């Protein structure tokens, strides 16, 4: 299942770079695309603004089929205070922009599954696919707008996984 999680993340990261290369984050001394997996980073004391934080939640497994299917719920958390040049008055627009970006990078709703343990990554036999996202209401904390969105990600377990 880790291969599916890695493939999902890398696919979204690649798509984000293609549509908005300016959305980046400085993390551990390196400038990276603005989408990170929370469980693969040092704990955040405060979630960074203007970045997609990817968080894995529920796991379900269906063993009734010839190949077991795993369903893992992925939550995206993203927040913004707008930009300094507009005094934060554009925070609503900034959040709408991130909503749009998330919807864009989630399509198409599938990607090949790769094994990132090996270098270079090796293609596996099946693909990873996911459902349409469900967006939660905006939460407001002073001048910070935060949104979460959830997607169920599916994959088949292959031999050796």
């Amino acid at each position, binding site marked *: 299942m880790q291969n599916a999680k890695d493939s999902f993340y890398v696919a979204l990261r690649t798509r984000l770079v293609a549509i908005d290369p300016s959305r980046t984050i400085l993390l551990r001394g390196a400038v990276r695309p603005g989408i990170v997996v929370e469980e693969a980073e040092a704990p955040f004391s405060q979630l960074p603004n203007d970045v997609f934080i990817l968080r894995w939640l529920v796991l379900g497994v269906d063993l009734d*089929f*010839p*190949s077991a*299917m795993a369903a893992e719920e992925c939550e995206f958390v993203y927040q913004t205070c707008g930009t300094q040049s507009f005094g934060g008055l554009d925070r609503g627009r900034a959040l709408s922009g991130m909503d749009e970006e998330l919807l864009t990078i989630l399509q198409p*709703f*599938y990607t090949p599954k790769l094994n990132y343990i090996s270098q270079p990554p090796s293609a596996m*036999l*099946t*693909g990873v*696919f996911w459902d349409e996202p469900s967006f939660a209401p905006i939460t407001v904390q002073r001048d910070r707008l935060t949104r979460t969105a959830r997607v169920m990600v*599916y994959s*088949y377990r*292959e*031999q050796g996984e």
Partner: protein
Amino acid sequence: MAANWYLAPAPVTRRIRAYFAPVNRAAQAPVLFDPSQQGAFSLDAPPSPWISLGWIQDFVRQPASRTSPVLTGIPASPLEQVRETLQAQVSFQFLSWTKLTMALATGSQHMNLLVPATGASAAADGAQAAAAVTVQAGSTASFVALTALEAANFAPGNIVALDVDYTGQTGYVGSPVSGAYVRAALTDVDYIRRVTFNVSLVSQVSSTGLTLAEPLPGGPPAAGVKLQAVTGFLDREGGSFYQEWSALFVIQGSQGERIFLYYPRLQSRSGAEETTLPLAGRQTGSLRRTLLKGQFLALPVTDPLDGERVLCYRSFLPAPNALI
């Protein structure tokens, strides 16, 4: 080189995509779909002459063929079974309103509402139309050449219909799709342009003609074709004409597998019908989406392979690496 494999579960699908192609009514020739040669086509670019009608929902196909046992002995018990009738029905909802989806979802002729002539008397299916414009030489499927004087009467956003004048012919009329069957000669010179499927949206107007947003279904206009502006579309409950199309439904699985349902001949089997759907699952207001409901009867063709009469071909292209 060895291939790895896995045991493929039942396909997981999200939606079904529909493609239609016109049956040549005069020659009774449906359009072929060969899954062995054409099965890998891009869903957004179907092979010619298939036309994508987008995603559909609530797709139901219902085999209605009846079989009956041949009984023998005392007490009687089945010895064989025979197929008494050959019949199948298909129904689904279109997720868009276009000329073609509207036509397919009606059981009769589908008409273009031509822009009326000034002072014309009212009529239920559109008043007498303004005079048609002759298409000039040099036109293509995406560009209609007109004189500067005539082009000035059009604007971007207009819908236009192109076809020949009606001159008293009977039988199937309309190109490239038979839009109606004329049993007795009519008097309306614009009748073929009323029923033609050769329509498109004007995206740009210049002094030399009209650039179209989509290519004309009939390709470059032939000599003698005329053009009229269209304000909308109309169909009627009743009549004796049945739309007949070849249909292809594609069910794409999550692992790249594909199921094709190919109906060589589908005829509308009911009158125009709409259904409504709440705009969103959690939405509690009164907004509803109005969808076209298509209901079809499958007609048989004789398969040249073995002479069997069949209604539908179902083909399956497995996912890469899936064990069969």
